[in-house]
């Protein structure tokens, strides 16, 4: 599978948020304003990219040779947790406003299923190291795209006169559903037409 195909697949066709419904928690929690949404998007991209590479190495150099693949989830979570911790430290040191805006969602990224998801999916798809890396990156970009679009819509909708029962989270869920429906337009046929 070519790298372009991997990127298109994970950004559009099976977007982690809008098609596979992974990582909904930060998607709804941090999408109230564009600035923190984009920050979260980049943080997820970074962690997902690094995590998919490192987990690939763990899978192929530790778990498979030692025949202990059943420890996959534990080992992956361990690595992801450490990565998130590092990202948190770096942000706290170099970008305190972003650190504050992301708040609780940063440590929650440890158990973000999108990141564990891309690691597991990359392993199941038998990617090589660079393909895993690409998949992780594309997953992050897909998340960034989704959360960025979502946050712009929510910023607009914040000033609209919405019926009372729909205000806040309910309307956000409806928006997410509509966005997910529009992403259904991208399917495998797109890949075939583009790449052949």
């Amino acid at each position, binding site marked *: 599978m070519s790298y372009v195909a991997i990127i298109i697949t994970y950004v559009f066709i099976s977007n982690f948020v809008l098609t596979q419904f992974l990582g909904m928690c930060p998607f709804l929690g941090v999408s109230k304003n564009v600035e923190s949404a984009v920050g979260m998007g980049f943080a997820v991209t970074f962690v997902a990219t690094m995590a998919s590479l490192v987990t690939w190495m*763990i899978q192929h150099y*530790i*778990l498979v040779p*030692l*025949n*202990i693949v059943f*420890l996959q989830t*534990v*080992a992956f979570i*361990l*690595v992801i947790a*450490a990565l998130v*911790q*590092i990202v948190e*430290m*770096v942000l*706290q*040191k170099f970008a*305190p406003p972003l650190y504050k805006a992301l*708040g609780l969602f940063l440590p929650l990224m440890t158990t973000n299923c999108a990141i564990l998801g891309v690691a597991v999916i990359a392993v199941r798809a038998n990617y090589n190291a660079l393909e895993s890396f690409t998949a992780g990156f594309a997953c992050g970009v897909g998340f960034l795209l989704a959360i960025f679009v979502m946050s712009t819509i929510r910023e607009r909708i914040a000033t609209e006169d919405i019926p009372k029962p729909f205000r806040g989270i309910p309307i956000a869920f409806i928006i997410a559903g509509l966005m997910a429906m529009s992403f259904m337009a991208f399917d495998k046929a797109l890949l075939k037409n583009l790449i052949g």
Partner: protein
Amino acid sequence: MLTIIYAFISITLLGAILGTGLAIAGKYLAVKKDEKQYNLERALPGVNCGACGYPGCSQYAEAIMEGRTTELTLCNPGGPDTAAKLAEIMGVTVDLTQEKKVAQVHCCGGKDSVEYAFEYKGISDCNAAYGMYQGNKVCKYGCLGFGSCIGACPTEAISYDSHGLVHIDDNKCISCAKCVTVCPVGVIKMIPVSADYIVSCNSKDKGAATKKACKVGCIGCKICEKKSPEGGFRIENFLASIDYSVKGERSSAAEACPSKCILKNK
């Protein structure tokens, strides 16, 4: 057997390597925290209940530190002790005469004494039940008894009594008022911890309507006002309430109450 050893060793090693890496990174990337703010954080209880209006204790400490708030008595769980500690750290004095308030359910209409409008078979949650014709009791002001407040309470101070209603243990209550917020009916109110009697009814319906809906509802008859004129009883919207700043005797009113809804506060 070998697999177990491999599993053990590899996960331990992985954890150790990552842990060491983080420790080193922690040294290099450490952010210096103000000692004063650290002390403020230490002085707060650390339950992160949010009663002060900030997401958690560290945010409250930060707000005090940055001068965004001068209120040092916002921490209900900590009470006067915490306020005094905060004041000491900040080098100011605060007025600590405020009495601790606790939440209490103002309804005694249990299973045997109220009329039900319909049988509710939905989700066992007060807010869900309230969404359906404001609950299954005829009285729209009473405790629904699905225990949403029990789930909201951070200190497990709320429990069911034998009548299917909830009761709040004021020894365990930390006055965070989370139950007050979660209750859709508004039947939980904050009262001073020293309150001797409570009017255990929340019904603002007229006397006749209250009487039809519930055997133990306040019908607004004003007998309590007359029997204990010093007790601070006041009838408003066909419901008696007690002004706790008035310290008179209230026992004769409790005895005379025809529907027996003025109860001794345990």
